[in-house]
């Protein structure tokens, strides 16, 4: 019953479209019914029922609707009045059409009932049906000659009523469908638009479409104006976006020009459009989707603007947390080494940010070293910043902008600040002695050895044990192999109980990692390759420090494939370096820019590392010897003049006994 009512009674809202439609139709209805008057007079004259009476009665019936037409506010109410009027006019026709065709005049009721569907309102059909039913019953009883030309009984009236009911049911259905699907279409569209807007305005992304000149469509997400402000006079996206970032506007304009030119593939041109806007600390991402017309030609662009600030912040926070974990592991493993790395890197970063470098290759070398070491100690963000800077230097052949160098420095400072609480005081100087050192001193004291010698022994404790340094390098090498996706590498170290002054040797060790990297990345073959070569077991690297007469030697040896001399020679030729003798090639190997690796990775391949090693070695008056046998391995020997920074303990009793 409720549903039936909801079906017959229209929703109260009257759209502008419905209002205009009904206003017009109601006016037409009034004219239409006034046009009946002469017809009725004619019919009355023909049927001899009095044309003058027809005139008077018709006008009397039309007084009501005429008043309604000019006084009613609601067009729907006027329509209902016309529903009643239609039936009254039908009744007049039947009345004045008395005689042989009086029954045929009843057709007009059914014609009118159908015509009333034009009002798109079931209530109009109902008013008409009720009117005609009441009229027929009443007149059949009071004035039968006005309705029938014979002595009709009640069941005849019932037959008429049955036809009216049938037609009314169908007419109500048609009216309602007409209302919902045609007259109410605007409402449907509006409801859908509202839903779409609701979605568009609540997903944190801004949408708008522009044509190939940048002209914006009216429909756009409200969030866009919360970012860029009201568009005001701006009709194009480039004008609009220029209010917050002129550069983006310019690039957009250029990109559109490229699209309009059509010389480049569409997706290439679209890819050149600006992708990011920095807006008071927020980062907005712009993406574009081409919209083609029916013929498949590019017509418009859908611009999707997303605020990716929190996404990026979250990613950065995650990276930093991961990084801190890595760094922490490294600190746990070797606090001393880590502190040294911090001190060195601090100097290097100061040099870079303060533009205290000799030339471009020098800058590149420093950045490369920071990258390598930061990578080793788990500072991924620093390593990747350095990688970008290095790329830029290679691409542009000039120093990166100061701003970018400052970014590196800031990132470094931020990372260090977070580390401070992990490290405690960074400059704390602890002396490390092992059991053997302790026993040596006790023994020397008990033997009443030369006090100068004992003092020297104790002083040496201020020096770092080479063993500790080598152990650390061993860990570095192993973790490097893992991170580079290589199989396990056996690293053997032997320090011969030497001690080294850490401050003097720190930067050498720091460049030394390049040798390891080369060995792991280029030297040692894959497991399959090794098996084919008949080598058993995993690749191995042997590192040893010892004193040979008056020289301090650091020796590194791997059992990999050896140096690819042909490749070095090719590169030397390309770089216009001497390449005739083996010595020439060794020299070339240690020159910047020579790398035999085809792929540049975060770890190696730019040919910068070896130059750094060479530089560090030369600084200490050292020399490099290289022995390489194809398929057998490579051995480096770094020979330095012996000085106070190296302490060699006297041979131990246990050692000679063993």
């Amino acid at each position, binding site marked *: 019953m409720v549903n039936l009512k909801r079906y017959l009674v229209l929703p109260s809202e009257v759209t502008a479209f419905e209002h205009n439609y009904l206003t017009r139709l109601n006016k037409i209805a009034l004219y239409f019914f006034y046009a009946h008057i002469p017809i009725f007079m004619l019919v009355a004259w023909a049927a001899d029922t009095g044309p003058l009476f027809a005139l008077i009665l018709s006008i009397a019936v039309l007084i009501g609707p005429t008043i309604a037409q000019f006084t009613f506010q609601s067009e729907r109410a006027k329509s209902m009045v016309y529903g009643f009027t239609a039936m009254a006019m039908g009744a007049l026709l039947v009345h004045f059409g008395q005689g042989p065709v009086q029954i045929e005049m009843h057709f007009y009721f059914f014609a009118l009932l159908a015509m009333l569907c034009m009002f798109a309102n079931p209530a109009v059909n109902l008013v008409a049906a009720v009117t005609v039913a009441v009229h027929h019953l009443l007149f059949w009883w009071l004035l039968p000659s006005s309705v029938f030309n014979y002595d009709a009984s009640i069941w005849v009236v019932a037959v008429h009523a049955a036809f009216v009911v049938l037609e009314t049911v169908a007419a109500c259905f048609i009216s309602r469908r007409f209302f919902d699907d045609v007259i109410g279409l605007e409402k449907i569209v509006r409801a859908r638009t509202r839903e779409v807007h609701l979605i568009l305005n609540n997903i944190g992304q801004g949408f708008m479409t522009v044509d190939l000149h940048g002209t914006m469509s009216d429909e756009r997400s409200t969030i866009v104006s919360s970012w860029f402000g009201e568009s005001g006079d701006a009709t194009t996206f480039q004008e609009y976006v220029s209010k917050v970032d002129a*550069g983006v506007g*310019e*690039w957009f304009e250029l990109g559109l020009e490229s699209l309009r030119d059509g*010389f*480049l593939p569409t997706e*290439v041109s679209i*890819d050149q459009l600006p992708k990011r806007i920095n807006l008071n600390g927020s980062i907005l991402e712009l993406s574009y989707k081409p919209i083609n017309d029916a013929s498949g030609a590019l017509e418009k662009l859908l611009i999707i603007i997303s605020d990716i600030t929190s996404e990026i912040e979250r990613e950065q926070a995650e990276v930093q947390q991961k990084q801190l974990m890595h760094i922490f592991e490294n600190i746990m493993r070797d606090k001393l080494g880590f502190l040294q790395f911090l001190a060195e890197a601090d100097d290097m970063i100061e040099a870079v940010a303060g533009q205290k470098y000799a030339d471009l290759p020098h800058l590149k070398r420093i950045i490369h070293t920071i990258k390598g070491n930061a990578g080793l100690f788990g500072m991924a963000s620093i390593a990747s910043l350095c990688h970008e800077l290095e790329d830029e230097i290679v*691409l*542009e052949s000039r120093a990166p902008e100061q701003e970018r160098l400052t970014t590196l420095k800031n990132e470094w400072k931020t990372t260090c600040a977070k580390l401070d609480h992990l490290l405690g005081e960074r400059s704390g100087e602890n002396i490390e002695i092992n059991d053997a050192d302790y026993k040596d001193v006790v023994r020397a004291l008990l033997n009443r050895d030369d006090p100068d010698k004992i003092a020297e022994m104790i002083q040496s404790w201020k020096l770092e044990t080479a063993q500790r340094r080598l152990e650390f390098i061993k860990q570095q090498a192993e973790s490097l192999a893992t991170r580079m996706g290589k199989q396990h590498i056996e690293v053997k170290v032997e320090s011969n109980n030497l001690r080294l002054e850490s401050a003097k040797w720190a930067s050498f060790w720091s460049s030394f990692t390049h040798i390891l990297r080369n060995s792991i990345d280029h030297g040692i073959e894959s497991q399959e390759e090794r098996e084919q070569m008949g080598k058993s077991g995993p690749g191995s690297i042997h590192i040893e420090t010892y004193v040979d007469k008056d020289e301090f030697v650091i020796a590194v040896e791997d059992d990999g494939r050896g140096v690819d001399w042909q490749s070095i020679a090719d590169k030397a030729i390309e770089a216009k370096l001497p390449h005739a003798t083996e010595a020439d090639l060794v020299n070339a190997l240690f020159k910047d820019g020579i790398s035999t690796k085809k792929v540049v990775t975060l770890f190696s391949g730019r040919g910068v590392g070896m130059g750094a090693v060479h530089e560090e070695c030369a600084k200490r008056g050292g020399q490099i010897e290289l022995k390489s046998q194809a398929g057998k391995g490579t051995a480096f020997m770094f020979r330095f003049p012996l000085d106070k920074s190296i302490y060699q303990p006297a041979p131990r009793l246990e050692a000679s006994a063993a």
Partner: protein
Amino acid sequence: MGKLILIVDDSAAVRQQVGMALGQAGFETVEAGDGREGASAVAKNPNIAMVISDVNMPNMNGLEMVSEIKKNPSNRALPILMLTTEGQPALIKQAKEAGAVGWIVKPFNASQLVATVKKLTA
């Protein structure tokens, strides 16, 4: 035999990258290290079907090179694509006014570059 493309860039690394991308797609390439070398390569070699050039270069920059090449009426149809780093829209405008057909921002996407070269030399 593939079409001949001239790559003009002062960075050997970029020339190599571009050369490799185009080489794999079946193009022949020649290289020039600056605008002057680039312009003279075009003057000497009528087989060059397209030029890909950096903007900032020593001796003669990309803009001057485009003007130089386009001075010769027979090069009017020779497509010149600029490869540039972001941050210099004014230079792009000038390059286009001088006769460059378009631009791609470095670092570039190899497949896009190849698609562009294919379209421009078709």
